[in-house]
């Protein structure tokens, strides 16, 4: 997962030994361990916490997709919520209009729909840089959810779509939130395995090359435009799948869940977690779900007047974001890495 990790001489031999193993095996192994951990966590916690664990899951995927686009590919997106919107509505519409389809088919369709939208956006965005790209993607986040008003009969207007997903296999006697958390994390981990493969392999290196120097990348034989579009495609497919998982989890798809604020907080969470690696997506998702929850608890406990209490969580979240960006400019993952390097050096010095 940490293709960006600085390889220290001491760890080089283990890294080289690992390289002979196909990345798929390595990442599948890690994913299985992660799934076991998630299952264990859900078994030990109440339904409410299970729901939160599942929520962290789809945010991890959305952020990991954004990490591919922004961290690896160097393209900024202020409109990633639009891809989640597309995924959520794809699942919603399929559950309502094609109830016989299994949930996994709905989720694949959500990823495909997100991917197609990403392909189109990427093709349009390939020539845009910096603020122009940011503006264009922001427009997508602002404009797209508005189409629900245009087709209220089909897309449910501002109330959105409500539906019930019956995905749990008959005979599996576990609470539904627990099953949902398992399914979300299974899907997320499969996607993360592919993303980790990308990060470690040729495609990831191509994206980073384009991010760092487009001229030099093209001279190395890398098609800059195509590489950027592929980054958008992958990232948006992850967004679509994440949105699909959200719809599966909540049983709704409503425009109110996909405001530009969602897109901005996704990017903020990724910066907080660490933009350069997939681990950053995990820290970012945890922050997104738990910092906000914690900030809400704090403002509830203070028994403040409603207008203040409503806005305090966001303000606290902002303060945390600012503090972490100051303390660890490369996000939580960057900070952890620096701590790891420090510990390593101290150990080396004692020897």
């Amino acid at each position, binding site marked *: 997962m940490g293709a960006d990790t600085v390889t220290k001489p001491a760890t080089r031999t283990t890294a080289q030994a690992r390289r002979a193993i196909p990345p798929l095996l390595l990442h599948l192994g890690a994913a299985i361990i992660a799934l076991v951990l998630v299952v264990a966590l859900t078994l030990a916690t109440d339904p409410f916490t299970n729901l939160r664990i599942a929520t962290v899951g789809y945010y991890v995927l959305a952020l990991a997709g954004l990490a591919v686009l922004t961290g690896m590919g160097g393209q900024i997106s202020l409109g990633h919520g639009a891809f989640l919107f597309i995924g959520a509505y794809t699942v919603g519409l399929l559950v309502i209009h094609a109830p016989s389809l299994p949930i996994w088919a709905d989720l694949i369709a959500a990823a495909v729909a997100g991917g197609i939208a990403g392909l189109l956006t990427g093709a349009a965005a390939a020539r845009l840089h910096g603020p122009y790209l940011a503006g264009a993607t922001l427009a997508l986040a602002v404009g797209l959810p508005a189409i629900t008003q245009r087709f209220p009969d089909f897309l449910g207007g501002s109330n959105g779509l409500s539906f019930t997903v019956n995905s749990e296999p008959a005979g599996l006697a576990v609470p539904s939130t627990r099953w949902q958390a398992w399914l979300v994390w299974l899907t997320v981990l499969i996607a993360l395995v592919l993303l980790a493969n990308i990060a470690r392999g040729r495609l990831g290196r191509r994206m980073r090359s384009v991010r760092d120097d487009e001229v030099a990348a093209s001279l190395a*034989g890398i098609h800059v435009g195509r590489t950027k579009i592929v980054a958008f495609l992958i990232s948006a497919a992850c967004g679509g799948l994440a949105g699909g998982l959200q719809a599966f989890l909540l049983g709704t798809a409503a425009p109110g869940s996909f405001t530009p604020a969602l897109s901005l907080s996704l990017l903020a969470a990724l910066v907080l977690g660490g933009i350069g690696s997939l681990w950053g997506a995990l820290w970012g998702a945890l922050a997104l779900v738990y910092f906000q929850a914690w900030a809400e608890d704090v403002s509830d406990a203070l028994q403040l007047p409603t207008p203040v209490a409503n806005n305090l969580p966001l303000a606290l979240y902002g303060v945390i974001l600012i503090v972490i960006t100051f303390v660890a400019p490369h996000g939580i993952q960057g900070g952890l890495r620096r701590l790891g390097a420090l510990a390593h050096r101290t150990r080396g010095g004692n020897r």
Partner: protein
Amino acid sequence: MTNAEQPLLSVAGVTVRFGGLVALSDVSLEVAPRTVVGVIGPNGAGKTTLFNVVCGFVRPKQGTLSWRGTTLRNHRPDQLANLGIARTLQGLGLFAGLSVLHNVMAGADRTAKSGLAASVLGSRGAARGERDLRAKAMTALATLGIADTAHRYPGELPYGVQKRAALARALAAEPELLLLDEPASGLSEQDMAELVTHLRTLREDMAIMLVEHHVDLVMRVCDRVVVLNFGEVIAEGDPAKVRNDPLVTEAYLGDPARERDSA
């Protein structure tokens, strides 16, 4: 194998205008296999523009380019590597977020045997492909004597080493023609001496075309020298001939400031 008579690259009657400014005017030259061609000229003479035309960054108003006898039409820079042309940049253009090893592996990317789909699946083939690329990259780094920097990042290294890393990245593409944009600029005397040795070794496997301010280096390593001034070829031939050309002396070599630079 290439017929020794047929040039690898030929530039015929190339003219480039930027607005009213004529950057290149009816420039023709040829690069034969396993020769070193140097392009010199004062600042603004059109040297880098010539490279940019060859690389497809700049489209000429007139004239043609051909590679192994085939005319290149509207070629893009990223197609060049697959033709067998690699180029270093004046500003190095190293990928700051990649280790030196991965920089050079990116250069070797066009030689990769496993596809991009395999890299997404992380298959055994992809692992083998990466191992091959890594081996090629390490060979290129070792050739230039900087294998020990493989796991460092460009920003941590002295300029001379970064310059070698950029050269290694170009070499990793296994080019038939290597375009070097000011390979000697910013190098110490010792680095420069080593560069001369490397260029002489590389010449046994590939053709090299270089743009350079450092006249002394050009005279030492080049088989042919082309002198540009105000976008025109004012002299061409072997180093001795060019050195004694009065037009060249006037336009370039005779400039006392230049002589001080190259001393």
